[in-house]
């Protein structure tokens, strides 16, 4: 590590320069959330935690507590992730292995939906939710988000299934196991790395979703962190940027933690491998 750093110092320097703007932005996000700059300046004047007050007191009477909103966000993200994974592992298996009518049509449709600008559907979705009585409920947004994430999930999982040798499946069948048992006991363990990566990815996608909750669940009961933050600066005539940045930090912490914990496994989703 040491020698390679020394040998490539030019490269390291170039990369440091290029990523400097990002690092500075993230740095000030943190600094500003725990300090008060001089009016019009950027140098911190005094350190204080008042921007983080939202953690222990309501920032104003009209808003739900941050913990309620965080809980909503967690329910939203994890339900989305679980739904996406549950449907992806079965649908992707079928697309990868089973020969059923219109399989090619489904595959083509999947790629198209994957690249589809979902925002164009928002009016139609709004009407459907309204009709089903799911408008302005967390449940409704969860279903919509999961549905929109599914093409990606199925496509990724299909890639993982495709890389499992056919022979393992044939061997299982020949050993006397039913197709379902072969899938559950022999094939599913091979795609576990992909499944884990997909679980994390769709959780993060749910965690950072903004437009869908904003449009489909604008009420205070179903508020998630993204819409909560939006409300914090949208409402006031004099926006409190310090508070906004502190909530932003709070909102980003789980994402950072997840990336730090799982970055190796997340790389899997791009490698598509099933080693180990």
């Amino acid at each position, binding site marked *: 590590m040491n020698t390679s750093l020394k040998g490539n110092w030019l490269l390291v320097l170039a990369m440091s320069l290029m990523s400097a703007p990002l690092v500075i932005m993230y740095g000030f996000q943190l600094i500003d959330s725990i300090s008060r700059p001089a009016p019009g300046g950027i140098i911190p004047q005094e350190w204080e935690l008042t921007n983080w007050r939202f953690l222990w007191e309501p920032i104003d009477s009209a808003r739900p507590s941050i913990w309620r909103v965080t809980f909503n966000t967690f329910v939203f993200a994890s339900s989305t992730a679980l739904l996406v994974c549950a449907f992806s592992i079965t649908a992707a298996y079928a697309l990868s292995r089973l020969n059923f009518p219109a399989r090619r049509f489904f595959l083509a449709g999947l790629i198209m939906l994957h690249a589809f600008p979902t925002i164009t559907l928002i009016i139609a979705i709004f009407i459907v939710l309204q009709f089903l009585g799911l408008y302005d409920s967390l449940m409704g947004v969860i279903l919509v988000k999961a549905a929109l994430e599914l093409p990606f999930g199925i496509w990724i999982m299909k890639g993982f299934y495709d890389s499992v040798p056919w022979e393992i499946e044939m061997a299982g069948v*020949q050993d006397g196991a039913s197709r379902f048992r072969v899938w559950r006991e022999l094939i599913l363990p091979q795609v576990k790395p992909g499944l884990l990566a997909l679980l994390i990815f769709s959780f993060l996608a749910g965690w950072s979703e903004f437009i869908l909750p904003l449009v489909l669940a604008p009420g205070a009961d179903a508020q998630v962190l993204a819409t909560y933050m939006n409300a914090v600066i949208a409402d006031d005539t004099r926006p409190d940027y310090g508070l906004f940045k502190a909530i932003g930090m709070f909102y980003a912490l789980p994402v950072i933690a997840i990336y730090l914990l799982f970055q190796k496994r997340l790389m899997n989703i791009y490698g598509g491998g099933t080693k180990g």
Partner: protein
Amino acid sequence: MQIKLQNFTKRFGDTTVIEDMSLSIASGEMIALLGPSGCGKSTTLFAISGIHRIDGGSLHFGDRDVTTLPPQDRPVGVVFQNYALYPHMSVAENIGFPLRVQKLKTAEIKRRVGEMAELVQIGNLLKRRPQQLSGGQQQRVALARALVRKPDVLLLDEPLANLDAKLRLEMRSEIRRLQRETGITAILVTHDQIEAMSMCDRIALMRDGRIEQISTPSEMYERPASHYVAGFLGNPPISFVQAEANGKLILGAGNALPMPQGISARGAITIGIRPEHFGPQHQGPSVSGRVSFIEPQGREDLIDVTLPDTQRLRAIVPAGHNFALGQDVSWQVDLSRTHLFNADGARL
């Protein structure tokens, strides 16, 4: 268990891969399905295993009609080319999987797995994962897993193709030993003539979805039924020369061989002469040409002789000869061991 495949037909979409093929295998016999890739040998194997549906004809194991039986219910064990071990299971779990599917008691599974592991000599590896094994050891695990259910038939799909040369030699005799010890009826799919000849009681040589010839290895080598069979078996391969039959066999430009006994063909024919039946050390009529290639092999050399009309014969000559490139030679052909084929490739 006797296996009887009758009028077997297999189609993939609109293409008929195998049409009206019949094959009968005696109980305890080991037979090879030999042929180039794409000849339908693996298709036949997987039709017998149940993975491919049989589109026409019937399959019997003994008296039992298994034509429409799903693969789960067929008493067959299969060894795949890449072994298809379950990577997330230990060796013991791999071998025990078929028994677990049958819902046997844990103690019984353990006993039979141990027994099987001893038979294939991997008793000390039971706790390992497949990735921690060498190719030969993985092969043994695959064999154990295929045999642990005590199937009636063992099917082997190119089992040696992924092994290096030395292990291949070892596993060749190992598979044959297991087959003999268990007395199981076995079918080996291979494109390697040496594997087929050295391991099996009989060989079915396949070509374009048909069985070209089925007989014992020595019979097939000594009396190939067609030009194709003669060309497929033998290493170094047989040499073919075109000749005109007209009372004798005229090889053009001064070379001629007498007609072998009992053959009375006229017109264009092909003569197949194996390298071990041509050379200065043999008795018989001679053919002259010029030495055009020498390939030393240690114990013997391979020498190509180009005849005046540019046809080529290959000879195996014991090492220690003094022949040189470009030298004119007149060597003998063991006439009784030559093979004559008509224009359609059929044996005369």
